């Protein structure tokens, strides 16, 4: 890996950071490698761009978190620029911290936790879908039986027969509606989950 490749990869790894921060870091490593007597050895010493980026993002996340909570890590009060950053940046801070978490070595346990939560949501959603689907199937299956019984009972007791046929038709309608509902839940529930997950992976994942 030469200097250009290293810097390009580093810039890519830092793509979610603010432009200013990214440029500063890339510039530092550009200078660092240029100042070294041996370019290849300097790059080898730094390690992978992903590793360098992880260090940068982790530190940046800690800084941003400290700023948003008004804690500067020292006895000094924040400068005016720090105060400005503090306002309305809760969401941004959340992203930064999440990003830092994904980039840091503790990412694995967090990833497991997220996977567990996703698994639980999928199971819960699947259970809801299965219950509604089962109800729909039972309702629709009961329709022919109820209809036959209703028609058969007509000569004996026309009123009860009418009620039976009515119930059968109502069950059929409800069943069809439920099947429709299952389809919608499955489509938006699982589809939404998939979109949310792919968003997380694209934004937070290192690779």
């Amino acid at each position, binding site marked *: 890996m030469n200097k250009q490749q290293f810097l390009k990869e580093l810039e890519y790894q830092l793509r979610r950071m603010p432009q200013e921060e990214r440029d500063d870091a890339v510039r530092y490593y550009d200078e660092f490698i240029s100042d070294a007597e041996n370019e290849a050895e300097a790059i080898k010493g730094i390690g992978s761009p992903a590793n360098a980026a992880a260090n940068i993002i982790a530190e940046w996340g800690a*800084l941003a978190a400290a700023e948003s909570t008004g804690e500067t890590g020292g006895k000094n009060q924040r400068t005016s620029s720090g105060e400005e950053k503090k306002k309305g940046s809760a969401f941004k801070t959340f992203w930064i911290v999440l990003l830092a978490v994904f980039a840091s070595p503790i990412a694995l346990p967090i990833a497991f936790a997220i996977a567990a939560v996703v698994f639980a949501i999928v199971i819960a959603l699947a259970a809801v879908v299965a219950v509604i689907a089962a109800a729909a199937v039972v309702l629709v299956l009961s329709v022919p039986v109820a209809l036959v019984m209703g028609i058969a009972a007509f000569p004996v007791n026309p009123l009860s027969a009418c009620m039976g046929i009515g119930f059968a038709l109502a069950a059929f309608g409800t069943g069809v509606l439920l099947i429709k509902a299952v389809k919608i839940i499955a489509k938006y529930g699982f589809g939404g989950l998939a979109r949310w997950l792919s968003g997380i992976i694209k934004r937070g994942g290192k690779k």
Partner: protein
Amino acid sequence: MTFQVGSALLDACTLAVVNRGDAYGYNLTRSLKNVIEVSESALYPVLRRLRSDNLLTVYDIPHDGRNRRYYRVTEEGKAKLAEFVAEWEIFKERVDTIFTGGEGLKEINLEIESGGENLLEGGADDE
């Protein structure tokens, strides 16, 4: 080296090296690596933090057809460094006391002994 360099010590060493003379990223890393174990990729975040804490400031000097970024210790940084040095003295003395014995160690031993006696007495009361 067996002993790990924590983030506070790394901050202190970085401030101390820059305080000896303004430095740029590469020679700063070289100087630090001569003394403590620090990886090349660990230093940029430290410099970034010290800058945002206003302990270091940067300026550019043209070199080889490009700009080289130098780091300088601010007044705040100097005060912080003095604080670090004072705390290091205390820390070093304590560790030395334990390692080599001496007056201080006797006091520590006495404290441990009296603490132990109190514990024993407390235990005897319970019986």
